[in-house]
């Protein structure tokens, strides 16, 4: 038994080593060459994404592979890359040759557009502003909700400990910030000095400001910090699934409609000869099967009918403000809230 186990580990280790070496050699030739070498007209694309989508794209890639093989007879290999959204965009800017990006923020894709990597007007190339699934910001609290947190005004009460990442380094954290601001803005009827005081009270309760959303989740879930985690809805569901019975999800009365953006990185896709499959990869995200998979992974599908199928999973009563309507788009929001010396910095100024 012990021997077999050892043998097994060895086989796996050798396999990994061989795969690593193969990759090394494969990396030397262009991907088009690779395709012709392997005979069965295989093609490989790289999807550069952000932290929270890891589990979803693992499942989606399998779904897409079957679909694409059936449709064209071509095997498609998808390589995933995950990390903080801004960091991921930077890596593509610096020459990480992604065929598609599926990032947390429109403004991250805009940076790629400025560098000429994605097409002008990329946001109109796919339905629903190139956001096949949406999400929102919810609260993850400990089982039984001991601090009785129901809405944003409970989060800012003194004595509550809040965990959220830093909007300066995390796309998710920007959504958190704007969701809270949108609530305050409705509460105070647009009086900005009161909104600012609300946000100051909120961030006074923040004891750890992690650099990314996964880090913040670990701080809350694994290290037991804080009473409430402000997080993506899908991340909250993931934490519930991984730790059954330990947490509860609370959906506030007002939150923000988070539209993670997807786009083909034209420059690199053209270079790799993968434009067609890259485009199909993103388009298929809107298919019924993919939309169901998104819902199962805690994302709100843009297809209304399928969203209704999953209405038990999502609190559909929440009022969702959009970045365009409430804040006049990302570039304005970034300027006003997250630039150096802007609102977020003012919150922490002494």
């Amino acid at each position, binding site marked *: 038994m012990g021997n077999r186990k050892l043998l097994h580990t060895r086989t796996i280790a050798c396999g990994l080593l061989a795969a690593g070496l193969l990759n090394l050699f494969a990396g030397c030739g262009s991907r088009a060459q690779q395709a012709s070498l392997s005979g069965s007209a295989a093609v490989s694309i790289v999807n550069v994404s952000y932290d929270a989508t890891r589990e979803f794209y693992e499942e989606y890639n399998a779904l897409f592979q079957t679909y694409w093989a059936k449709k064209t007879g071509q095997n498609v290999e998808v390589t995933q890359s995950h990390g903080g959204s*801004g960091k991921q965009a930077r890596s593509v800017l610096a020459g990480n040759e992604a065929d598609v990006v599926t990032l947390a923020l429109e403004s991250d894709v805009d940076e790629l557009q400025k560098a000429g990597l994605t097409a002008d007007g990329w946001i109109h190339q796919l339905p629903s502003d190139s956001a096949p699934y949406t999400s929102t910001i919810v609260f993850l609290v400990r089982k039984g909700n001991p601090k009785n947190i129901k809405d944003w005004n409970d989060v800012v009460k003194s004595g509550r400990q809040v965990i959220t990442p830093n909007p*300066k380094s995390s796309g998710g954290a920007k959504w958190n910030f704007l969701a809270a601001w949108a609530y305050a803005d409705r509460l105070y009827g647009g009086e900005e000095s009161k909104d600012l005081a609300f946000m100051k009270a909120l961030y006074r309760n923040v004891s750890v400001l992690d*650099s990314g959303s996964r880090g913040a989740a670990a701080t809350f879930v694994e290290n037991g910090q804080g009473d409430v985690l402000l997080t993506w809805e899908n991340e909250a569901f993931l934490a519930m699934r991984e730790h059954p019975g330990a947490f509860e999800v609370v959906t506030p009365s007002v939150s923000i409609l988070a539209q993670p953006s997807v786009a083909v990185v034209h420059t690199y896709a053209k270079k790799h000869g993968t434009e067609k499959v890259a485009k199909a990869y993103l388009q298929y995200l809107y298919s019924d099967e993919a939309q169901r998979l998104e819902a199962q992974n805690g994302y709100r599908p843009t297809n209304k009918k399928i969203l209704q199928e999953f209405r038990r999973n999502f609190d559909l009563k929440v009022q969702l403000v959009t970045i365009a309507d409430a804040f006049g788009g990302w570039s304005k929001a970034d300027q006003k809230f997250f*630039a*150096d010396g802007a609102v977020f910095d003012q919150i*922490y100024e*002494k």
Partner: protein
Amino acid sequence: MPAFKKAAQNRVIPGFGLSMGITVSMLSLVVLIPLFSIVVYLSGCSFSAFWQAVTDAKTVAAYRVSLTCSAAAAAVNAVMGTLLAWAFTRYRFPFCRLLNGMIELPFALPTSVAGISLTAMYSEKGWVGSWLSQFGIKISYTTAGITMAMIFIGMPFVVRSIQPVLEKLNPQYEEAALTMGASRTRIFFKILLPELLPAILTGFGLAFSRGLGEYGSVVFIAGNIPYQTQTVPLLIMNQLEQFNDAGATSIALVMILFAFLLLLGMNFIQARVSRIARG
């Protein structure tokens, strides 16, 4: 130039040109050109923008956090590292070699792994942190946590600087002092410390500058709250993620100057100390 050439020709051992070439080209490729590129990058940004980036209140607070924490960590390491080196060179105890080998683990371990494990251990849920929290001591997510991470990654520098010196130090002097009736403390301050001081200072300087630049292990254990527990490397990362490369390089330049002055100062003090020690 002729004087320089003459000096080169006067060497007994051949190969001066070769060694000079190796030194300059390697140093250029690996250190000088990358550092110089920061300056070149900055030449495109106006002085007022540079000045604003490096003197921003939040940045200044981050310098303070980084400097005080790494100074504290280096000081703790200087004392504890000396004791460790002493124990390893003068005594033989079970697992001595094994433990001695483990000193370098912080070098080999990915720093983020170190950060995550330290955070888990010292948080209120971890087994050290839960015990400490009974006394109201909080380590993770405070400056104490940052210092702790910096102690972890700086320890090998001090131990490995001191060990060889201690090994070469002849115990005869101590024994002689002892037979002449000197007390243990007197022996330590009059005989051992002067010999060890240059090495301790080297270790201190290395641990200090490593702490200043440390990102991976610190970012997890620090609470990252502006003005309180935000370190300079994190601030640089934040600037980069906001696509503000000029801001990031400005702050980076200041940190390079800090580290350079620090190491230069250490070298200077060390040279003086060893001159005094030699008499």
